[in-house]
């Protein structure tokens, strides 16, 4: 562990130095955001500076998905759908990635993808800033960068495909739990790691929503972190229930957390007394919805997320869009999307699963 992490660190340092050197060479004249968009001017002749909505989607585009970690079932579904979508526009897509979701583990993969001269890199960032240097370098070489699932820092990618707006996710989770427990009592949040970008954004909106007068009887007592580890999430859940005996509900906006909390509660004396909700996949939650531990939980369709990410990368690489606010493009069967503020594209509202509809889904 020690040597490998040191190697990654030195690789990151090297990349940092390289990109510093590059920006120093290219800089001086322009220092605004268009420099990042155009990719340093001289290096890229192919990518036009302005969008041409009618440009054809190029054939044989090489795109690569870089998930938080391979073997994460959720990301596997997303990436697979994205790779299939590439078949529709005759592109070549693949998935590469690290086996651990640590902040720096994606850096060496980005460097390899740059060397392979991919047309676009799609990344679910483990850490918004750790991947920033290498991604900037990729953009300076004319490679389009699309973040999905978890965003990279704004100036290190062209687009961010948001599964649902962070705001909508955060607010809807509070509403869901409030409906389940009658709008009254102590509640807690069981998150993943303390520095996960998407989790923290959702939690901020949950807190904001809780500030509204209609939720004045709900009291958020603690945000716990299960580190997306089964045992840790179990122990955090136990701790919450012991430390707050009047706890009425837990929101866990992470797949590992919600299944651990549900598993623990379904086998303990708290079953039926403490509500669990959050974000999970229908397959992993089916058992707990059927045995009554969980009434409702939410998620978007991960296949649609991969599909949209794939199509938007193709549109970027073909010059149909540049990532500026207000540009529109069509993503195959999903229809038309508009780029929002800060290069963000939103897939749609989250979908609620319950005992009635859960059997219609298999992922």
């Amino acid at each position, binding site marked *: 562990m020690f040597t490998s992490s040191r190697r990654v660190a030195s690789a990151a340092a090297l990349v940092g130095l390289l990109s510093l050197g590059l920006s120093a060479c290219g800089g001086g004249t322009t220092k605004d955001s268009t420099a990042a968009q155009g990719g340093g001017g001289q290096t890229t002749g192919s990518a036009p500076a302005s969008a041409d909505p009618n440009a054809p989607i190029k054939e044989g585009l090489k795109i690569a998905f870089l998930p938080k970690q391979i*073997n994460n079932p959720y990301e*596997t579904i997303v990436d697979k759908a994205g790779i299939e979508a590439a078949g529709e526009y005759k592109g070549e897509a693949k998935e590469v990635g690290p086996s651990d979701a640590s902040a720096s583990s994606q850096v060496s993969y980005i460097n390899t993808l740059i060397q392979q001269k991919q047309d676009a890199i799609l990344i679910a960032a483990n850490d918004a800033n750790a991947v920033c240097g290498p991604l900037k370098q990729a953009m300076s070489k004319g490679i389009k960068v699309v973040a999905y699932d978890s965003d990279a820092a704004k100036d290190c990618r062209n687009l961010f495909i948001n599964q649902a707006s962070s705001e909508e996710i955060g607010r809807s989770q509070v509403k869901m739990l409030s409906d389940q427990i009658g709008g009254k009592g102590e509640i807690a949040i069981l998150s993943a790691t303390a520095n996960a970008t998407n989790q923290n954004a959702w939690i901020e909106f949950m807190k904001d929503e809780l500030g509204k007068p209609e939720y004045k009887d709900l009291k958020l007592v603690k945000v716990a972190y299960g580190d997306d580890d089964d045992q840790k999430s179990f122990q955090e859940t136990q*701790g919450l229930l012991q430390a707050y005996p009047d706890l009425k509900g837990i929101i866990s906006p992470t797949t590992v957390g919600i*299944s651990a909390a549900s*598993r623990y509660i379904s086998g303990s004396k708290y079953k039926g007394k403490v509500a669990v909700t959050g974000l999970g996949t229908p397959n992993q939650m089916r058992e707990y919805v059927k045995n009554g531990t969980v009434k409702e939980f939410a998620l978007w369709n991960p296949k649609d997320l991969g599909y949209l990410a794939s199509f938007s990368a193709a549109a970027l690489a073909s010059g149909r869009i540049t990532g500026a606010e207000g540009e529109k493009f069509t993503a195959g069967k999903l229809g038309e999307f508009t780029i929002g503020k800060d290069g963000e594209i939103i897939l749609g509202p989250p979908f609620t699963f319950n005992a009635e509809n859960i059997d219609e889904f298999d992922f």
Partner: protein
Amino acid sequence: MTAVTAGRGGRSLVDLVFRARELSIVAALVLLVAVTTGVNGNFLSGQGVKDIFLNASILVLLAVGQSFVIITKNIDLSVGSVVGLVAFTVGDFLAADHGRGIVFAVILGVAIGAVCGLANGLLVSFGRVPALVVTLGTLYVIQGLDHFIAHGRQINAVDLPPALLSMGNGGVLGIPYLPLIAVLVMVAAGYYLRSYASGRDFYAIGSSPEAARLAGLPVRRRVMTAYLLSGGLAGLAGVLWLARFGTVVADAAGGWELQVVSAVVVGGVAITGGVGSVYGAALGALLLTTITSALVVLKVDPFWQQAITGALLLLAISVDRLLALRVARILRRRNARHGS
């Protein structure tokens, strides 16, 4: 002949020292539980006690297996990967057909674990490669195999037979199955190591491999057995992992090898071999998991949890070193007095 004359007195002295070690862990545990319960009475409620033992069971099993290996002056870093591999493959196997029996699943899990252990054992004892390197290698190989089999899939609770899931949180007469299994394994292993001649061989080998070889002990076979046991118990732990958590992805138990080694060392099994008991190791595992739970209940920043585990480890190693020096000095003085 000094060894024989010093035998009786020396042994009881060493025994006393290490019983003292186990007692000190028990004392630490009692203190920890008392303080935590003082702050929050629920920590020692029926459910709370059940949780403490359930949380520790899997780590206890792994610690017992690891003790055998460490007592022979070796180490097994592949156990975390073995747990992950077994949890996934057995889950996959059961998901395919709910009619497949739990007993058969346990046997399959132990068998897969034992095969992994066998590979480690062969490489270490016959290949004469340092255990640290061998098991680091198999850690990655087994993990890779697991990832290959899983291919990003996930085992869900709904795919598993209800009987297995109820093994994870059910019990007999209010005592959950998992701790019951862990205690049975611990007692059996402890009895074997203490009361059988072949059990004592493990200590002799760990104290001085060269002397053990010259004394005609089957060193290779014992080291092999140690790895086989460690692997087999990791396999059992893998099945229990599946039963407890229900949802399993490929990297289940990733990084647990270090927790296991920490538990064993905190429990008084010297990393240099030849010293310690499985009871101590099991207590070490119980202490480490209880610390984690207690810190959550005490609402302490999770950062401290790792720091405290590290500090305990350092403390344990320092105490070991100090005790070893002390015992050696007393034995030397006594031998001198008896006029060797």
